[in-house]
């Protein structure tokens, strides 16, 4: 008995469909709530090559929605756990393990070997990076994203069709739209959306049905309502010539921090410090620390003279978010210097020192 008989007996799928799956290569970026259900089905159904990409460890708060992981897996590398379980599920699949996060330096090299990318990430910078890399390489990618009780699905850049930037031209800042960590998600929703992503990837590989290209599927779990929104290609979004110089680093990257209280003590000790305040000029004029140099976030290049002469730089803003972004940028630009984000920013300084 052929293990795929239940699907090859489908008139519109058949042995031809199975053969296409067997030859198919799918990269799943992110081994979390969306990536796991997508992978389990792609693997079960017989996709020949699966790329697994993640560098996170299994954590307790993952288990509520990332149902492949068990309590025994806590603290282990997701990549290893997934490889182990999926190999047991289907020994015929070829797995490529990418022990990394997707970055502007590795994205093109990794994605080029695949037919389809499943975007199962949890942050905007990687989503925009996947979009741009897929546009450059002319690869379709299956998008899935969540918010609370709601999920969004689409297939972008499919056969010259619309891209992610046709819907959302500008990347939101970390302040304006919260991620799952801050906002929360009902455990079953990624299961539904990730499974939809597997379905779309299968359709792209085999050509069955109607690929969700130029349409955004909005699923609301609370009302059990699905809405499809049509959108068109803006041709300028296909004219990307190279990746952007800078995609905001992943939210999960940790930047060195110092608590506002500790920083306050440091100031009182009269230590010789360099403090950069990345708020706007207006905010800075309104209230500032006397040691601070004002270099607004949109003109960080002006900071070079202050940075090159010292080893340690402290960065502050109003709440600690913009300064975190700034620290990440500085780290890339000045890998030999130490940067510290002041947690809570001026808000915290106010409460520590009224």
């Amino acid at each position: 008995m052929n293990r795929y008989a239940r699907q090859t007996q489908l008139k519109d799928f058949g042995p031809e469909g199975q053969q296409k799956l067997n030859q198919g290569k799918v990269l799943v970026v992110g081994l979390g709530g969306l990536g796991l259900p997508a992978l389990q089905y792609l693997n079960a159904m017989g996709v020949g090559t699966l790329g697994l990409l993640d560098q996170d460890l299994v954590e307790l708060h993952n288990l509520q929605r990332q149902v492949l992981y068990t309590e025994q897996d806590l603290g282990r590398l997701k990549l290893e756990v997934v490889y182990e379980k999926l190999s047991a599920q289907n020994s015929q699949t070829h797995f490529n393990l990418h022990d990394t996060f997707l970055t502007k330096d590795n994205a093109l090299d990794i994605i080029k070997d695949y037919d389809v990318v499943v975007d199962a990430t949890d942050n905007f910078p990687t989503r925009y990076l996947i979009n741009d890399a897929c546009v450059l390489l002319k690869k379709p990618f299956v998008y899935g994203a969540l918010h609370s009780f709601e999920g969004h699905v689409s297939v972008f850049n499919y056969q010259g069709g619309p891209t992610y930037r046709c819907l959302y031209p500008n990347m939101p800042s970390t302040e304006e739209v919260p991620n799952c960590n801050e906002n929360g998600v009902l455990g079953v929703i990624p299961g539904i959306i990730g499974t939809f992503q597997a379905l779309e990837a299968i359709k792209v590989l085999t050509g069955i049905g109607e690929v969700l290209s130029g349409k955004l599927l909005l699923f609301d779990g609370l009302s059990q309502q699905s809405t499809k929104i049509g959108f068109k290609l803006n041709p300028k979004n296909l004219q990307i010539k190279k990746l952007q110089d800078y995609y905001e680093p992943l939210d999960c990257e940790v930047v060195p921090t110092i608590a506002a209280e500790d920083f306050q003590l440091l100031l009182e000790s009269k230590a010789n410090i360099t403090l950069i305040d990345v708020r706007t000029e207006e905010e800075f004029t309104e209230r500032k620390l006397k040691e601070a140099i004002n270099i607004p976030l949109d003109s960080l290049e002006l900071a070079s003279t202050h940075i090159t002469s010292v080893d340690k730089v402290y960065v502050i803003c109003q709440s600690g978010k913009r300064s975190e972004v700034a620290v990440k940028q500085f780290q890339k630009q000045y890998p030999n210097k130490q940067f510290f984000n002041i947690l809570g920013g001026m808000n915290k300084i106010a409460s520590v020192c009224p």
Partner: protein
Amino acid sequence: MTILLFGITKDIVGAPTLSVPTASVTGKKIPKTVKELKAFLGNTYPELNKLSSLAVAVNNSYAEDDQVINSYDEIALIPPVSGG
């Protein structure tokens, strides 16, 4: 005019839908295009102005800012969502 809300706009408004008056008894300007609607909503909910990308759909199709809207149109605000 009823507006369906998705993602963070649902949280900003605090409800899944929003009703916008289509005949003004107060003398306030009634939005006639997508752009005017965004401005109208942004006045009531300033948090909406902070979204750097906010897709608006009219009758289940993505709409540009200059698209004209009518009281019987079905409108949706669809910001990007990031969770996974």
